[in-house]
């Protein structure tokens, strides 16, 4: 049993992306009920704040990651500047993350500004993805966030997104999520 746990550790450590529970079971050639308690143990052993790294649950999988506490120090390791998002990129990502699937026109209606360039950059960085076409006249493309988006921000799933502040309750009519009606899909 100890060996199975070691193997699980090794797989997660060596995988290039977060390793899902299903894939881990396949790799270990064991059933889920056999693997589950192991993972519980590992999550405890490598929980955040104990060592320099911890076992994180991200993007539907497990991955060893350095503890966020150490972040400022670790930045000294890399010469390159980390990815810095512009305000426009963050807004666009946020809107799509919370409201996906979204068309470009819907994003632009919410932001009040042309967003094609920003969306293209985010698509190229693989943080957004095209997830089909909307069933309305013109069949505009629909966008959503990708797995890399979850990995980048260390989220298990979209449900892990920070809760949005509710719009002030002063006016219950306004507080309701406003249905989007972009003028037109151009």
């Amino acid at each position, binding site marked *: 049993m100890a060996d199975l746990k070691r193997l699980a550790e090794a797989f997660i450590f060596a995988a*290039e992306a977060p390793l899902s529970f299903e894939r881990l079971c396949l790799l270990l050639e064991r059933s889920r009920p056999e693997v589950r308690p192991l993972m519980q143990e590992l999550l405890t052993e490598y929980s955040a704040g104990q060592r320099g790294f911890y076992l994180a649950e991200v993007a539907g999988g497990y991955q060893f990651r350095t503890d*966020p506490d150490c972040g400022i120090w670790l930045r000294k390791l890399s010469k390159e500047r980390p990815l810095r998002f512009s305000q426009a990129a963050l807004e666009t990502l946020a809107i799509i993350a919370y409201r996906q699937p979204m068309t470009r026109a819907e994003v632009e209606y919410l932001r009040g500004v042309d967003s094609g360039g920003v969306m293209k950059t985010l698509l190229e960085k693989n943080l957004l993805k095209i997830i089909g076409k909307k069933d309305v006249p013109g069949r505009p493309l629909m966008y959503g966030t990708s797995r890399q988006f979850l990995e980048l921000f260390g989220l298990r799933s979209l449900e892990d997104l920070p809760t949005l502040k509710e719009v002030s309750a002063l006016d219950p009519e306004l507080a309701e999520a406003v249905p989007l009606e972009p003028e037109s899909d151009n």
Partner: protein
Amino acid sequence: MAFEIHLDNFTGPLDLLLHLIKTNEMDIYDIQMVEITEQYLTVVEQMKQLDLEIAGEFLLMAATLIHIKSRMLLPVSDEPVEEEDEDPRAELVRRLLEYQRYKQAAEALEALPQLERDVFVSRFVPTEIADSADETVSLGVFQLAEAYYRILSEVPAEVFHEVIREPLSVAQYVQLVVRQLADGQRHSFRRLVAAWPSRAELVVTFLAMLELVKMRLVEIDQVADYGDIWLKLRVAQGELAAVDLAEDGFGYG
């Protein structure tokens, strides 16, 4: 009221409006349209004077503000207008509130520990899995579409609909290509076809090139993806005479 504002500090007109509302300590549910419109226009005007290019969205918002302001100034009509007397600002307020939500969400995202900025993963690759798999590219519908359209942009159009009829004969172009390559040097495909500008000729030249490769008379290589294709004669000029380059040999007749 003097303030210094730069448009590029704002991601859009909604952002600028929110800023103005906040600095004026206004209630977002009760925007003072006259004041706000005036300030907004001042900012836009400053930008114009600085000869900065102002995005259309900022001007559109200016028009919207003026419109709302004028509607607010109209005397409330006595006629019982159905239920239509919604506050002219309502739509703007809704948009501002909604936008504010996502502006805050963006801040929340930014604050999350970010990979390669606050959090790092191990770079160690065990030799067991370090097989030389080809370099990988990111994969999504967008990448797929972009790859396709990039290729199209480098290929002459309508190639698949072209019906090649005589008088362009492949054999004839085989001869032409061979003549061009006779010096034994490498020649670029692009340069070769440049001599024959029409699409039909290009296709025939291409077919001729393929024939020559098939007959092992010419070798082709490409140094980089998307790079030019290089052609070079594989045989000495003298040996060519022994090869039958006549028309019927190619089966295009």
